[in-house]
């Protein structure tokens, strides 16, 4: 029994980080209606920034100090997101959806290979003691890997913060209005361009933060983003477009499903289970498992 609970816990812990990435993608997808094929490459960038900054301040990087990089990396990623938005996404607004596919796929190549130029193709990992530490609860025989636990908690806090921002502030209302109808929102005095900019910047920033949180867990290489990319699309749709809480719950659900199937059946079956779930949700519950409104398109 405790083995099963352990599997669930592992799923929930990784699911929390999935949630954070998915919330970022959901913001962009929900507000602008574009699939960002490069999203998880920004995650990879976040990981590399963490790596480089941590090697710069090598003495600081004992224990949990790596999480101190969240703020600088988040700021860098937000700025990168804004720059990408202004230089590349903005000129394409109003175009066919196909344009965005091409653009983000092209961007994905560019980002991956620029990373390869700067950091080479060989994997690196962050030198912190935290990755080998874990909390063992003897009474219930459960292990909590510390890095994953911290990642989960920080991800959860950020997801709640963005949820608050979207629901309780004027800026959030403007973003949500834009995602429902750009036209109507602009009649009501919302500047859709500003909503797009902030949504895109925040989306990329969350991918970057997820990168920091995952950097003590995984080794880092230029193509690591592709291992997450399709799973994150699945989470966004399972949770429901424009549903921040939906994306969060779906992230946890996918984490759990992946771990149960991967541990009890076969590792290769885990993605199959996730994508089957994804297709079933699209067909049977188009608004997403946790969505309430009907889906556009």
């Amino acid at each position, binding site marked *: 029994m405790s083995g099963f609970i352990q599997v669930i816990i592992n799923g929930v812990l990784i699911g929390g980080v999935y949630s954070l990435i998915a919330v970022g993608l959901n913001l962009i997808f929900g507000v602008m209606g574009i699939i960002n094929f490069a999203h998880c490459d920004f995650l990879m960038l976040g990981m590399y920034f963490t790596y480089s900054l941590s090697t710069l301040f090598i003495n600081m990087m004992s224990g949990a100090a790596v999480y101190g990089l969240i703020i600088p990396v988040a700021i860098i990623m937000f700025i990168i997101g804004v720059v990408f938005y202004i230089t590349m996404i903005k000129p394409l607004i109003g175009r066919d959806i196909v344009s965005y596919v091409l653009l983000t796929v092209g961007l994905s*190549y560019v980002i991956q290979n620029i990373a*390869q130029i700067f950091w080479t193709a060989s994997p690196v990992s962050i030198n912190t003691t935290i990755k080998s530490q874990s909390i063992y609860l003897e009474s219930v025989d459960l292990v909590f890997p510390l890095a994953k636990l911290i990642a989960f908690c920080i991800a959860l806090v950020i997801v709640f913060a963005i949820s608050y921002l979207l629901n309780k502030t004027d800026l959030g209302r403007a973003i949500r209005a834009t995602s429902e109808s750009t036209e109507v929102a602009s009649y009501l005095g919302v500047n859709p361009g500003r909503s797009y900019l902030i949504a895109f910047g925040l989306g990329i920033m969350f991918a970057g933060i997820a990168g920091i949180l995952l950097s003590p867990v995984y080794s880092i290489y230029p193509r690591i983003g592709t291992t997450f990319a399709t799973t994150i699309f699945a989470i966004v749709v399972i949770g429901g477009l424009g549903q921040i809480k939906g994306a969060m719950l779906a992230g946890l659900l996918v984490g759990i499903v992946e771990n149960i199937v991967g541990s009890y059946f*076969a590792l*290769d079956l885990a*993605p199959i289970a996730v*994508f089957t779930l994804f297709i079933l949700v*699209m067909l049977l519950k188009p608004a997403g498992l946790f969505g309430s409104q009907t889906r556009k*398109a």
Partner: protein
Amino acid sequence: MKINLKMMIPLIIFLLIFPTVASLVFPNVNNYVVLLMFNIIMYSTMGTAWYIIGGLARQISWAHAAFFAVGAYSTMIAYQRFGLTPWLGIVAGMGIAALLALIIGFASFKLHGVFFSLSTIAFGQIFYRFLHLFGEYTGGASGLIMRKSTESSFINLQFAKNDSYYYLLLAVFVITYIICKLVENSRIGYCLKAIKENEIAAESLGIKPYEIKLKAFIISAVLTSIVGSIFAVRFKFIDPASVASHDLAIRIGMTVIVGGLASTEGPIIGAFIMVPLLELTNAFFGNVLNGGLSQTLYGVVLVLIVIFMPNGVLSLIKSKTKRLKYGKNTLS
């Protein structure tokens, strides 16, 4: 039904004489040059097949690597495991691809726009994992190798000269192109175009979008699987990463989008741009800056194309010729 192949005849003649010319002009590197052209024709053919569903009906599919893999694996398994002629493998591949397209389309065409695309990504990923899961037959991640035959045999599709595979592929390309044109000018083609413009309006005119799209998807899948079969007999090695990956699926669609989604020449132009571009950047910058520069340039070109040529390279060529014909004012 009349199909205008006028534009294609010079191209086909060019491709037919290409290996001969190459061996005269580049006697030292002619194998490489012919291989490059082989890849261009391969992407042209896959792109043309993809165009039937992605261009005519604007249903952007990212599942086509799966159909390519079906053809490759059927041929490889038929020949290697069961000692059957690859021709049987090709036919089996076509049948399985049709069935797979039916399954994928059955579910995915209930969805529209981006959600259709996402669904095809999911099916592509599921198929990719299945290849690993049934490693007993597919060789799993390490793939399958076809033993080299010592003698040339048309029945076993084993040729001493690589040029033979080139001509085989060229034949497949011509057939695919003609089928694509036939579909475009048939009732299905007109229905597909109506669906592209406005699915609801098309439905109100008595068109059944779901069935029409499914038919087009199956035709497209079957044609793609044939290319996969040729790939397997030509290169004699396949693994999931090279024939079934998400990357390949994206590349197939991207070739067409770069060329232009508006006409059957789009995929060909796209292939003539994208394949040499990747080759050239690899050849010149393959070892520069940790090997990252070549693909960076490739990506930059993609981004530039999408920003400055919204409807693909073809639109640029077409608008130029139009301008020459009718003066500047027609371009509004």
